[in-house]
């Protein structure tokens, strides 16, 4: 039986119908049409579906939409402001932090969470943080470079 779910997605209040078993990622992609959040493995391993719930990174394939009632969700679509890429997105662009690009939304959402906690992560800290984000192209070298640059840029922006 469908229930109503109300939450804030990328700053906008939304209400939609969902079954109790509907996953947040299904709700985002199928009900709200926000297809930037990807489903890679669907078994909580790959991290392509990472979004922020109340500011912290969560795998949206492993949380029910109904659990997000009243919460603030940010997806990859919510990072750019006024047509300007978020510093982490810009860093991925500049460092070519992707190959096929499928894992990129989750990589960037995880990286933004890391940068908030640790404005100057070392290469080791970035690689450890990416434990739950898998790049099937094995393009980690530039992803790590991008995250280090993006964390620095996010920090500089805040002053």
């Amino acid at each position, binding site marked *: 039986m469908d229930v109503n779910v109300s939450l804030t997605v990328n700053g906008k209040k939304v209400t939609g119908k969902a079954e109790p078993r509907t996953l947040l990622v299904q709700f985002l992609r199928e009900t709200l049409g926000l297809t930037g959040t990807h489903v890679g493995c669907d078994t909580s391993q790959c991290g392509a579906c990472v979004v922020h719930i109340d500011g912290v990174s*969560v795998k949206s394939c492993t949380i029910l939409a109904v*659990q997000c009632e009243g919460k603030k969700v940010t997806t990859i679509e919510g990072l750019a402001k006024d047509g300007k890429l978020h510093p982490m997105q810009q860093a991925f662009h500049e460092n070519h932090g992707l190959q096929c690009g499928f894992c990129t939304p989750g990589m960037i959402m*995880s990286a933004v*969470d890391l940068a908030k906690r640790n404005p100057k992560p070392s290469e080791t800290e970035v690689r450890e943080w990416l*434990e739950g984000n898998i790049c099937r192209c094995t393009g980690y070298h530039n992803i790590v470079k991008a995250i280090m640059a993006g964390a620095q840029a996010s920090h500089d922006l805040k002053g």
Partner: protein
Amino acid sequence: MYEFEYQKPKTLAAAADVLKKKKDAKLMAGGMTLIPTLKLRLAKLSHVVDLAGMKDLVGIKATKAGVTIGAMTTHGAVAASAAVKKAIPALAHLADGIGDPAVRNRGTIGGSISNNDPAADYPAGLVGLGATVVTTQRKIPADKFFLGMFETALKRGEIVKAVEFPIPKRAAYMKFPNPASRYAIVGVFVAETADGVRVAVTGAGGCVFRVPEMEAALAKKFAPESVVGVSIPTDGLNEDIHASAEYRAHLVTVMAKRAVAAAIGG
């Protein structure tokens, strides 16, 4: 996933009531095991009872005697807690090694121990430190809480509220993680406590267990070489595509040795 009803009760009494009335209802804490289990259709539930509304189950309290961690406290919060890092750094280290950051942002101590996965980290921490599980009905010593694979002393409708950890003299946790899931292929928690030395092993068998021979050897001399000669029998150890029973038995000694060295090193 099979269909189910979702409930988010406001009180523990209301949650316990649903469990008593509906035999196919189950509690959900962080959902990091329950949701994947439902997705694989390994479980079919009538009701999922979400404990996320219980704010008083979240938090960490430290005193001179010990650290109390609320059941709905996430692994990430335990790993980042200055109080835990100061009082029992081995426990913060254990929490920091569970799954990955996004999983640690949701997964909870209460959920982990109630599920009692044979390869989970927390059971080793609780048994290794001689912790006490506080439930809605009683206090259960860790040694009597974990009964077998996915089996605990919890009764129907009994809910974990918190875990009380005494502060050890020194302790460390070392695990050999599965490179994909980060679950322990073998994890060993060693602690020198007021009541003696405790060695708890996870991942190797069907349920967390202690190694009395290692505890006795370490009580005489708390040094890595004390455990080198102690090996555990392979009978009843887990065997899968990741590691044979012999390999797991070998890893228990290796991880115990490393844990003792780490406990001494600080």
